[in-house]
């Protein structure tokens, strides 16, 4: 297979990733103390996939996952926010090389890098992009959409920061290093 193309593994990762993203968005929202707001676990998963499979996978999982979820659960697609999910996935994915999660090590330094990256990525996404697009497309009042973005951004940053980090740490542990398995009688 040629180098410039996506590997089959990445393609499948995008497909399955999008499916999981949707299921988490629909079912794995944790009820939070704030009335009728939930903690969205799906972005933590998006971050994990982005770190494991890179920016393209991250971006497409965000795009496909969010668009499909909107479509099948709301019958219409809020492109402004879909684009944000894509960008967030893509930006976090850019850190994949640095994280090198497959190596199986995920020490404090990496944790910090990861969280800086995810905060920046989501900041750009939720604080700037989302409101900008809302104004552009729907000409909605600036202060409204900025507050929306602010809230969504902050809650997602916290979720990804907590759960995302947990998931990455857990995933790193699962990478069995070479020549590590022996039968112990």
């Amino acid at each position, binding site marked *: *297979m040629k180098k410039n*193309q*996506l590997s*089959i*593994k990445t*393609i*499948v*990762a*995008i*497909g*399955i*990733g*999008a*499916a*999981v993203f*949707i*299921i*988490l968005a*629909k*079912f*794995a929202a*944790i*009820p*939070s*103390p704030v009335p009728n707001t939930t*903690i969205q*676990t799906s972005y*933590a*998963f998006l971050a*994990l996939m982005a770190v494991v499979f890179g920016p393209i996978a991250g971006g*497409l999982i965000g795009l*496909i*996952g969010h668009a*499909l979820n909107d*479509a*099948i*659960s*709301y*019958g*219409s*697609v809020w*492109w402004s926010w879909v684009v944000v999910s894509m960008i967030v996935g893509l930006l976090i994915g850019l850190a994949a090389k640095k994280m090198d999660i497959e190596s199986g090590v995920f020490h404090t330094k990496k944790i910090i890098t990861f969280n800086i990256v995810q905060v920046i990525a989501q900041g750009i996404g939720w604080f700037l992009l989302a409101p900008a697009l809302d104004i552009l*497309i*729907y*000409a*909605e*009042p*600036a*202060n*409204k959409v900025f*507050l929306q973005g602010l809230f969504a951004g902050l809650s997602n940053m916290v979720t990804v920061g*907590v*759960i995302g980090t*947990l*998931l990455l740490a*857990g*995933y790193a542990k*699962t990478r069995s290093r070479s020549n590590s398995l022996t039968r112990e009688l």
Partner: protein
Amino acid sequence: MAVEMLSYIDRKSPIHQLTGVTKLICFIVWSSAAMLTYDTRILAFLFVFSILIFMISKIKVSEVSFVLIFILVFLFINNLAIYLFSPQEGVKIYGSSHVLFEIAGRYTVTIEQIFYQCNVTLKYFAVIPVALLFIVTTHPSEFAASLNKIGVSYRISYAVALALRYIPDIQRDFRNIALSQQARGIDMSKKEKLPIRIKNAASIIFPLILSSMDKIETISNAMELRGFGKNNQRTWYRARPFQAGDYVTLAAFGLIFVTAMVVTFHDGNRFYNPFV
């Protein structure tokens, strides 16, 4: 757990007859038209027209009512929010102010504001029927083929197909995992405190991720073993050839789009202003 989802509804109707490609293009054209314009006349026209199409499709409203209800609630809240945050947005946009009656402070109700908010709502309404139709009248397995036809790389198209294909499986897995976790004594309900709940959530999400990672492994193996990605393109078992109907529809939608754009932007402003 049973959260309803929209899915393909099988009918014999002109809409179902159209190829997925046609429907996909029309959907895109339509949404972009509705996104770009803010011209009330256009939006009104799009809305009425899409209602007509919806009737042709023989899809019953009751079959999609659960999303409609959701959307109505969403729009209501959205409108409320808009008003709370900027009650004079309309005035700003249309540059005039016809006061109807006063409430406290800046919350005076103006015709402009009402008109503006009607437009916002109309903007959503104009897209919803078409979007709904696109989803419930396009067979998922034809969808990927269509994406590929309009120029998306078949690898990415297939990723979308996989997503659609595996949503039910993942849902089943998620449920099984959640259940077997609870069977080992983990509590997900509101009874637990928040930190514990987050930890527990992770304890369910994590197995799901592990099993999904294994899935990715096995599926890509299976696909590799059956020669996926060998060539630079691939054919599609479920793709359908174009018929007269498709060309007509595409032409019609193209025309609508162009007119919409012309009417909207001829005066260099995407808003239609009845107040001057």
